[in-house]
């Protein structure tokens, strides 16, 4: 809609490690969608949540009251954000090597400062970068993208105007671009024949997004290499 070709994603700029008191933090911008995320590394969390064989992941998604078009009166706690937090929790349970930290807890907080479409995908990218910044062992950097279908032609990285009620859209998250789907979420009804075209485009775009994230991660590691010595 805004002059991009269907298979072109919005420009991404990110910044890692800006929050001093969090183990890992990341700020990512997909075009106008701005997400800030902080990770508080494996620490001995609440007794009720502790699991014997693996570490438990607590995720909280909250969007600021002025992030959407209409003003929301509560940033978190409503049904939508609790559902998205659960989705993220489940997705990252399979990405992080959880059995390396038994009986511990990792807190992930992501804050959508401005939501202009495919907020969930931006959150996933932000979280995986923040985890990388925090140095938590993972199977790979999870990259995600939302892709919709208009008359059979798949379009990628939807903005809020494109996320209307009628357009079926799939949010897909894969691990380091490989064909390992960690999260798949479908909104609105999608005809079965379009299913594999959408899946293919989503998978390939995830791979491209992965490239950008990998580059950013390497630069960041190289930047603090002298400090680590």
């Amino acid at each position: 809609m805004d002059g991009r070709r269907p298979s072109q994603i919005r420009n991404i700029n990110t910044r890692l490690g800006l929050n001093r008191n969090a183990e890992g933090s990341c700020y990512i911008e997909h075009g106008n969608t701005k997400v800030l995320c902080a990770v508080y590394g494996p620490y001995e969390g609440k007794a009720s949540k502790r699991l014997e064989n693996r570490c438990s992941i607590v995720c909280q998604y909250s969007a600021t009251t002025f992030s959407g078009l209409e003003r929301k009166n509560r940033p978190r706690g409503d049904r939508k954000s609790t559902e998205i937090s659960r989705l993220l929790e489940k997705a990252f349970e399979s990405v992080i090597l959880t059995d390396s930290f038994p009986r511990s807890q990792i807190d992930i907080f992501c804050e959508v400062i401005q939501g202009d479409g495919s907020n969930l995908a931006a959150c996933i990218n932000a979280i995986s970068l923040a985890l990388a910044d925090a140095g938590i062992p993972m199977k790979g950097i999870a990259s995600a993208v939302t892709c919709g279908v208009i008359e059979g032609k798949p379009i990628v990285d939807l903005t809020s105007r494109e996320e209307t009620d009628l357009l079926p859209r799939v949010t897909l998250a894969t691990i380091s671009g490989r064909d390992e789907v960690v999260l798949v979420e479908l909104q609105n009804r999608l005809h079965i024949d379009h299913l594999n075209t959408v899946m293919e485009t989503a998978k390939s775009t995830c791979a491209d997004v992965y490239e950008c994230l990998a580059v950013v991660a390497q630069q960041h590691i190289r930047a603090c290499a002298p400090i680590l010595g």
Partner: protein
Amino acid sequence: MEVYLSDDEKLFLIAGIEDNIRNDGRTCADFRQVVLEQGVLTGTNGSCRVQLGHTTDVLAGIKLELESFDKDSEKNTPPPFKFFVDFSANASSQFAGKGGDEYAEELSAALTTAYSNSYDILGNLKKVQLADGYRWKIYVDVTVLQWNGSVIDAISLGVIGALHNLSIPEVEISPDDGGKVSIVLKRPRTGGNVRDEEVPVDTWKLDVSRCPLLVTVSKIGTGNVIDCTPEEETCIRSQLWVGLTPISNNDFEVTCVKQVGSGLLEIESVNEMISLSSGAVKGLHSALLHRLKTEEYRKPGHSFLL
């Protein structure tokens, strides 16, 4: 914030403050470095981001909504502001879930009292009330992204910046049938074939020169300190929030004084603190006004935090 200091570190700090020198070289009445950027969020009518001393980071966004109000009770119409402070869990894991909510309520209550007599602070606020029973409701939402002491100063600066950046659309009122009113955004008359939406709506700005500034003054040992860092906050005896509004060009009028947290305060030390704060605020206020005027107009939505 969980910043732990050993006793002798505290002693060292308190002794320093008593003869007016602090760990980072500032005197008791200096502020840390303030970064202020306006118009950072495209989705809001007015926004501003304030960073205090490279750590405390606050984002203020304002949205306007049309609200009907019974116009016959003219005198005590509540001010059109609605403040909401929210601690993002990014600041620290203690704010996850319901963690920071009571402190946030305390802050929004302080802001509401400070802006309670808003009609005489902001000169042209009357214009907000459109004819027969409709007016703009100004929702001011502040999100604290990082928290490292003296949050209330950063928030009050952020609110002033956002109010300054706020552009309120001009509106034409044409009465409709059944007592309803149809509101039309006024657009500069342009012939030609430019589609109506693209033409920028003319807006007007609020005059923020007399907005109140809230400052935290804390009592450490015998000295009074402005804008404490987390280390200094661990050895505070008691804290005072002082709201100051400039009347003429350089003297200030105290709008609200609120004691925060426990701790005893003698009367004279309260007066001392207030005079100290008004001195510090003068410098801050002039710097703020200067900054608001000179900030060049950047493409909205440029990426900040970089």
